[in-house]
């Protein structure tokens, strides 16, 4: 139930980011100045935290999506769905432990 709620919320969040992201990338077709002006806002502290949240959301959605696929196709998937949920959480923590320090150092310097 909660995995479903989180999967849906992260899916919608990523979807709306993707819409914006296709439009901001399309600025490379306008001019280098226009693209750089917008992409530079991605390097500010607030957007940097936003990117951290985005990667956290994608990380959960991706790992839990693989869990859904295993539940659907793996013969004992439904039996282990709860265990796999905790595996998703564990892998997610590992993923963020690897990503966050590096990304926050890029954004905040250090």
């Amino acid at each position: 139930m909660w995995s479903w709620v989180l999967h849906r919320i992260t899916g919608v969040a990523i979807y709306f980011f993707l819409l914006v992201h296709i439009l901001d990338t399309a600025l490379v077709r306008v001019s280098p100045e226009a693209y750089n002006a917008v992409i530079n806002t991605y390097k500010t502290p607030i957007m940097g935290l936003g990117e951290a949240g985005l990667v956290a959301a994608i990380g959960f959605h991706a790992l839990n999506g693989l869990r859904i696929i295993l539940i659907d196709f793996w013969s004992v998937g439904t039996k282990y769905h709860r265990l796999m949920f905790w595996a998703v959480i564990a892998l997610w923590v590992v993923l963020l432990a690897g990503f966050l320090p590096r990304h926050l150092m890029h954004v905040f310097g250090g």
Partner: protein
Amino acid sequence: MTTEQVEAPRSARVARRSTNFEKWGWIYMRASGVVLVVLIFGHLFVNLVAGEGVNAIDFAFVAGKWANPFFIVWDTLLLWLALLHGANGMRTITNDYAYNPTIRRVLHWANGLSTAMLLLLGTLVIYTFDPCPAGASADLLPSFCAAP
């Protein structure tokens, strides 16, 4: 004794032998999901983790990536698979919450139209990209533009 005639059931819809859109949508969500894991984590690694991370991204960075056909294919797949996956997911959510038939139809149309337009826009951007646009100042362009 006569055989009793059993009338054929008057089912509202005769079973149609057409493609099952919802089934293929369901399969697509899973098939694209597996591929997207690779495409998205590769994308995040190259753009946010490797080298200077987000600070390295600018016009010249994009031009450098798209000078390599590998990233043109990568980004095209990412665009189509992710947007169709997301749009189909949003279609499911619309069906779940939009009870009003008119609102539901409007949302489905908005979803379909925006998806079609963004696929067209994104694809055009990738395949009509000019890494050395005339008149742009050289310090914003990739180094290979300087070559005679």
